[in-house]
């Protein structure tokens, strides 16, 4: 009962154009912690992260679209041992990036690195770690890429807020990374998880006061004539909890994202009873991440 009321609240007013839709309720979005849903080019497979809360373990899972909806996910063949998360597919479907702390040359790192796999007739290649210029940074969070090989990625410095950089993939490697301007890298705020539109025309990312992860919301910045517009909060889908982990589908039609919205962030006019609390803690809306999608119009809707 509580769960149904909250889904209605998240969907906004009845006349809203934007209706966030939970992806695979009970199958992909469950009482466990999910985030980062990446669709293959044909839209028939979704890769996403599921974790032991509080970062004790992460795995990348995959599910296939069937006539009856999404199939029961299994751990992807390349994942399940190390902390693998945040799968990202390039718009041409030929590369999959993900973040991992798996060993590099036999040595387990103490931070995350970006790994890439290439698509072939036999499936995905063995993961390879991205070297220069990414390994210049100590702690990497996220990467995405346009159709033309412009690459945005995310760095967590030890002594300041998370920052977004851009580089270009070339025949021989990557160009020297450049820090995006303060329109995106908002002063004193963490700017995280840049997901670039396939045509480089806008970016969705999450941001919030530094180190206040639970307060992150999704923002958009438009990229016009080489400039970035000041980041605008996606108020139509933001909640009091963390909203993050954006993906834009290769066809440009959908924004997939993650929200920790649940029973805990809705004001209560009375005390919950113990049975009600137990039921809520075991529900899909227990405050752990779930994956949602909205039509891309939500990103450009400035009415909110």
């Amino acid at each position: 009962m509580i769960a149904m009321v909250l889904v209605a609240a998240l969907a906004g007013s009845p006349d809203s154009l934007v209706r966030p839709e939970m992806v695979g309720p009970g199958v992909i979005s469950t009482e466990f912690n999910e985030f980062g849903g990446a669709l293959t080019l044909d839209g028939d497979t979704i890769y996403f992260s599921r974790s032991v809360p509080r970062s004790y373990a992460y795995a990348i899972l995959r599910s296939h679209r069937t006539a009856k909806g999404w199939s029961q996910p299994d751990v992807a063949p390349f994942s399940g041992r190390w902390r693998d998360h945040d799968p990202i597919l390039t718009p041409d479907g030929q590369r999959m990036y993900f973040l991992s702390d798996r060993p590099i040359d036999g040595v387990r790192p103490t931070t995350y690195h970006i790994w890439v796999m290439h698509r072939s007739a036999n499936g995905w290649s063995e993961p390879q770690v991205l070297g220069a210029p990414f390994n210049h940074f100590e702690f990497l969070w996220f990467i995405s890429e346009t159709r033309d090989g412009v690459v945005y990625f995310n760095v967590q410095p030890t002594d300041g807020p998370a920052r977004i950089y851009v580089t270009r993939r070339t025949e021989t490697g990557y160009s020297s990374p450049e820090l995006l301007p303060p329109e995106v890298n908002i002063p004193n705020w963490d700017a995280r998880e840049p997901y670039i539109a396939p045509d480089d025309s806008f970016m969705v990312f999450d941001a919030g006061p530094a180190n206040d992860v639970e307060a992150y919301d999704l923002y958009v910045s438009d990229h016009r004539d080489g400039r970035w517009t000041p980041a605008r909060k996606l108020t139509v889908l933001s909640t009091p909890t963390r909203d993050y982990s954006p993906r834009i589908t290769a066809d440009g039609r959908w924004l997939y994202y993650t929200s920790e919205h649940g029973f805990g962030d809705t004001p209560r006019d009375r005390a919950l009873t113990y049975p009600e609390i137990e039921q809520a803690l075991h529900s899909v809306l227990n405050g752990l991440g779930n994956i949602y999608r909205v039509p891309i119009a939500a990103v450009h809707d400035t009415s909110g």
Partner: protein
Amino acid sequence: MVKRAMLVWLSGALCATRGTLSAQPVLFAPGVVSTPDYERSAAFTPDGDTVYFVKRSAEPYYSVICVSARVHGRWTTPRVAVFSGRYNDSDPAVSRDGRALVFMSTRGGAPHLWIVHRAAGGGWTAPEALPSPVNSDGAEMTPAFGPDGSLYFASTRPGGAGSFDLYVAHRDGHGWTTPASLGAPNSSGFEIGPAVSPDGTLLVFMSAGREDEMVGPGTSYSRGDLYASRKVGDAWGPPVHLPVPMNSAAAECCPSFSPDGETMYFTSERGFAMDTPERPFTWPAMETGLRSVLNGLGNIYAIPTRQVREAATR
């Protein structure tokens, strides 16, 4: 009570460490208090037969103080404390005489300390915020009572050594003295969760970000470990990092003592996924772990205070 506690220790796993008999911590009231949900912060009434504790969501979006009673030796299904359940409350601490309970709440906005008193005919009075100078313009959390009724707690008030530091306020008529830093236990890192033994000689607390904190393999997450200081004259001595099995690579926090001082309770997130598995997780294996009591969400453990004291004396 003492006899029952001894039986619990003897039925727990025993192992010899450094020449002393070292018991593993015992899960407190498994399946009743310690469940697959997130529990922390046990606080007992003076007779030891009622426990207040916190149940919360994995990320701290919802937090509630619950209570369970021991009936014929068994802990009964908890209920929500009469003063909790609507707002986010945490960190219960029961006074030595059982007449007052202090807890952290965001019901007034920022995290501060609130108090309820035993009402005539049972139950508790309506919560009231503790006055200044106990509550400050910063944040306060994790209260604990000392043997003389003084109030220990963590605060971000100006003048501290780090983000959260430990303070003590003494009774002053019907009010409180200006809180004083506990001194040596505080660092430029993060200290919360003080607990003072009923004899007043041992302080155990949580600190995060120290060099000796235990972390797991791979990406390094600072989650907090337990430290202990002994009373030296009127001051607390330099803290000692408590060893395994009191600490683990998972988060430990929220120590407290049984009213007789024989047992220390603490919260730990130790669980099935702390070490890299030898073979990749399948989803069924991961799901089994995630549905278990040791799913990485907090549980409450008990360990003999003697063992803590021995570690703190080394």
